[in-house]
């Protein structure tokens, strides 16, 4: 299948997904379930990664700002901007693409090869909408929550480890974090997050939904879903940054 027919097939799939749910009560229940399965279950992992990467970012910035002419509060400022602009929205989204994407592709792929999707279709249910729409809505709503949590913990990690290692005092770090704060940067991070959430939810679902074969093909669909959604996140990260920050 060439790239153009693949893109066409993807958009036809998306059109099918974004049709009106047959039952809103079922949709709402599925949405809450997906928030828990995909979102809430990622909190611990996101917290762990954010805390330590925040610490590493602070240590690296401190290591690179050894010049006595540069004020120490720059460590806090650079940590804040690195985390808000890039680490939390992009890197955490890439990590979530692996965790959530493989879950989505393998779940839907397994349903396809065991004829569960055919069974839904036979009941007169729009299977694409029934299975995928709750996942998309859940990620679009919950990923910004995860990213907010990540920003907070990464900065907290930076402050804590910067302080105990003696590279940057609490006062200096907090001064830097508050210095020349641009609220639009947070808005930009959320726009990226929502966009990436759409990619994380739809692309692995697409590969899972059109799986043919057995266990091997489900694994391949999962890999393709994760790899391609990661590539798209990287590409759209550049495009969105170019559009919003220039």
């Amino acid at each position, binding site marked *: 299948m060439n790239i153009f027919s693949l893109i066409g097939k993807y958009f036809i799939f998306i059109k099918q997904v974004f049709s009106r749910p*047959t*039952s809103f*009560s*079922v949709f709402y229940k599925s949405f809450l379930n997906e928030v828990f399965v995909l979102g809430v279950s990622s909190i611990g992992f996101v917290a762990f990664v954010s805390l330590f990467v925040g610490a590493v970012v602070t240590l690296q910035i401190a290591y690179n700002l050894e010049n006595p002419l540069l004020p120490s509060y720059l460590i806090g400022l650079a940590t804040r901007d690195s985390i808000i602009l890039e680490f939390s929205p992009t890197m955490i989204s890439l990590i979530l693409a692996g965790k959530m994407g493989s879950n989505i592709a393998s779940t839907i792929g397994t*349903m396809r090869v*065991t*004829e*569960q999707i*055919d*069974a*839904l*279709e*036979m*009941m*007169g*249910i*729009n299977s694409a909408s029934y299975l995928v729409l709750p996942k998309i809505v859940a990620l679009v709503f919950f990923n910004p929550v995860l990213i907010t949590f990540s920003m907070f913990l990464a900065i907290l990690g930076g402050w804590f480890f910067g302080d105990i290692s003696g590279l940057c005092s609490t006062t200096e770090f907090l001064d830097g974090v508050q210095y020349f704060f641009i609220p639009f940067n947070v808005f930009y991070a959320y726009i990226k997050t929502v966009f990436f959430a759409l990619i994380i939810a739809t692309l692995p679902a697409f590969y899972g939904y059109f799986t043919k074969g057995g266990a091997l093909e489900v694994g391949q669909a999962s890999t393709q879903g994760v790899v391609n959604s990661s590539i798209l996140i990287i590409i759209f990260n550049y495009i969105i940054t170019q559009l919003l920050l220039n």
Partner: protein
Amino acid sequence: MIEINKIVKKFGSNLVLDNVSAKFLAGKVNLIIGRSGSGKTVAIKSMLGLHNIDSGTIFFDERDFSSMSKKEQQNIRKEIGMVFQGGALFDSKTIEENLMVPLIMFSSMNKEEMRDRVNFCLNRVNLENVNCSFPADLSGGMQKRVAIARAIVLKPKYLFCDEPNSGLDPYTATVIDELLKEITYEYKITTVINTHDMNSVMQIGDHIIFIKEGQKKWEGSRDEIMNSKNKDLNKFIFSSEIFRRLKEVS
């Protein structure tokens, strides 16, 4: 009644169904028989719109299913129950939730009425105390019975079964066959079953269609099948020692 006229289905250059025409009678157990790979499952899935046919027509009680939009086909499917070869039960849901899915989506029943209907259907397939079990907790035969219960939960007009007793021991296979026959007569459903099991043919087949390499080779009743002069059909039926001996005796 379901009527298919000259349906053709290809996968790439591979012709799987070649001008197949047949009528599936209301209130009867209609069987599609043939060897593995003969096109039985593709025939059933094409009739249900799960595969798009290349040409031909499919009528469900004079309603042209093949020319309907996807949405119209979805409405017809609400009148159809389907038992898949592997059961196709939703493995993340309990047995009760599996049967509830079509009721929640398409019925106006309240929760209590739904639960009564679920219990009625499970009792009808001789299953009790499995409401809270998951499909993985049940045996293959029990999963097939749950699949039948799910297929009849919305009181369908048409019931399709893709090799319902494959992978089951002879006794359980007979139980499933009997159950499908009883349900067909009891609710006057148009039942279409794919099988290559000759025991099923002799036990429940009211109207039988034999397919070989995507072509319909024979059509008739259970009584006619043993005395057919069709070479392909005879080769298929009498490939088993038991049926060869049965023919000699009869």
